[in-house]
């Protein structure tokens, strides 16, 4: 033992590099590469925004927001798509909220550590990775055909509910897990039943995180396109959609329709529609911040 530890092995000899300045220089080179990568990402985002804004802003006026689609780009408007997107977003939020939160409560507060529970958890992680277009195919088979909803806005909204449910569940589970056990134990000590503990002590503390998750999921639903193509978001709709009637469109579908036309004016109104989508998403993100701040005032741990 003593012989081998006293003598330096050839391997450690090879690892030791006395040229400190050189070693520090390679570190600086690496750090520059990191900063370059971040600059590239920032630049890409900036170019995207500049491209969309310069093309779209000239077409963005009240006639555009309040008008209906037209074969003449200068006369075209997005009101049916705007109303469709808002309706879908609200239905998605209202439906995904109870199911998602209930599922998260079960998985965090009730579920015993059994095979079935592990299956439920793994399944949610895997569902979050299923391509969105696959949900569209499922929505076509179940909501459009089997439940006879037809190509209605409701069929589209329910398809998106399934798509964002894993996101809502995961966000709600994180919010519930962040509530310390002392909060629960305090309520039990006062004689509360399990459901009373959850309703009175756990949910209020988890509410900021849960609400943030729901609002961000609604924001994601506004930007979704691919699954809605399968459940019939048709592209030329000149009337305002109602949930159960056949025929609706949403903003991203309108973007898709116009972006595939070669004429520059159609590209420009596609860009203008993108601006509306991005503004809606931005507003929802701001709403999430406000809701989070307001609800957090009551959480004191």
């Amino acid at each position, binding site marked *: 033992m003593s012989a081998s530890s006293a003598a330096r092995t050839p391997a450690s000899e090879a690892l030791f590099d006395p040229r400190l300045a050189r070693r*520090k220089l390679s*570190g600086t080179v*690496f*750090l520059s*590469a*990191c*900063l370059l*990568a*971040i600059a*590239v*990402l920032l630049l*890409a*985002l900036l*170019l*995207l925004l500049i491209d*969309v804004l310069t093309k779209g802003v000239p077409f963005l006026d009240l006639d555009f927001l309040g008008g209906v689609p037209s074969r003449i780009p200068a006369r075209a408007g997005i009101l049916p798509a705007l109303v469709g997107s808002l309706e879908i977003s609200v239905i998605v939020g209202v439906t995904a909220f109870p199911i998602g939160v*209930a*599922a998260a409560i*079960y998985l*965090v*507060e009730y*579920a015993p550590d059994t095979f079935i529970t592990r*299956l*439920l958890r793994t399944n*949610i992680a*895997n*569902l979050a*990775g*299923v*391509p969105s*277009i*696959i949900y*569209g*195919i*499922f929505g*076509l*088979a179940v909501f459009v055909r089997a439940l006879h909803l037809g190509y209605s806005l409701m069929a589209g909204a329910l398809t998106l509910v*399934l798509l964002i*449910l*894993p996101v809502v569940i995961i966000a709600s589970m994180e919010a519930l897990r962040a509530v310390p*056990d002392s909060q*629960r*134990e305090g309520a*039990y000590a006062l004689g509360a*039943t*399990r459901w009373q503990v959850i309703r009175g002590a756990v949910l209020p503390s988890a509410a900021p995180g849960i609400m943030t998750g729901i609002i961000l999921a609604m924001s*994601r639903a506004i*930007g979704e*396109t*691919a699954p809605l*193509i*399968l459940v019939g978001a048709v592209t030329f709709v000149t009337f305002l959609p109602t949930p159960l009637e056949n025929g609706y469109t949403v903003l*991203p579908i309108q*973007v*898709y329709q116009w*972006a595939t036309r070669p004429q520059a004016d159609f*590209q420009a109104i*596609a860009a203008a529609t993108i601006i509306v*989508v991005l503004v809606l*998403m931005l507003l929802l993100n701001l709403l999430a911040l406000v809701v989070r701040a307001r609800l957090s005032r009551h959480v004191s741990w």
Partner: protein
Amino acid sequence: MTSASRPLTRRVPPSERLVEALLFLAASVGVITTVGIVLVLVAEALDFFRAVNPIDFLTGTVWSASIEPFRFGVIPLVVGTLDIAVIGLLVAIPLGLLAAVYLAEYASLRTRNIIKPVLETIAGVPTIVLGFFALNFITPRLLKPLFGSDIGTFNVLAGGLVVGLLVTPLIASLSEDALRAVPRGLREGAYAMGATKWEVVRKVAFPAALSGIMASVILAMSRAMGETMAVVLATGMNPQLSLDPRQSVQTMTAFIVQISSGDTPQGSIQFKSLFAVALVLFGLTLGLNVISNRIVARFRNRYS
């Protein structure tokens, strides 16, 4: 939740049981969805395989669903999908990992608070917007000047670039988590041996986080293969077997969009082929997700 925070009483009122049953029902929606997806895809694909031999489908190298003679060999669509995913990863791995290392090892809290929102914004941009960007900016303004007329309006390179941009935040955020999970003690040990910061990152932190980083890359691959609208707008709908990134191909997702947004009748063989293609896509992405989750689960236990 620990057993200490369970109620001591054994009497559970019926209303409490009802609540628990309802909550369990909600938690099962995910499993019902998964089973439903598999059943729908398999049932409809079997219908398709009554008309087309599954071996011919999986090994055929010609895909022609809209022009006679109809041929249903899925290889061109799978290769088209892989073309996009590989170029996407060539972009996203260096960008995402450099960003992750910077965020986990170098960035101060202030710079982190600037960079994180940028990454989250990129991740939140609807993919159709990235497709628009590819078609309107990347191809005409960046690629045309570089390649001249050799490059088409729709091409693999533009699709790969935007898909790479799209999955970069995923790699960056998951790899950052993996790097942060490496215990401080490992780094401090290396510093005590006289290592520089870069040597600690390269020889200690990065190798220790490697499995988590691998998992993020696999997940990004799955995400890239399932990406739809960005690819439809950037790369087009030309189902040819090609490795030339300047040409247009068709991915599996783009084919599904083409069939479902056209006026293809629902009972036709073309429409049925959609389900067989979707089954292949579902199988491939699910396989990658399962591998990635397994790696993460194993990694989580290592340092706790």
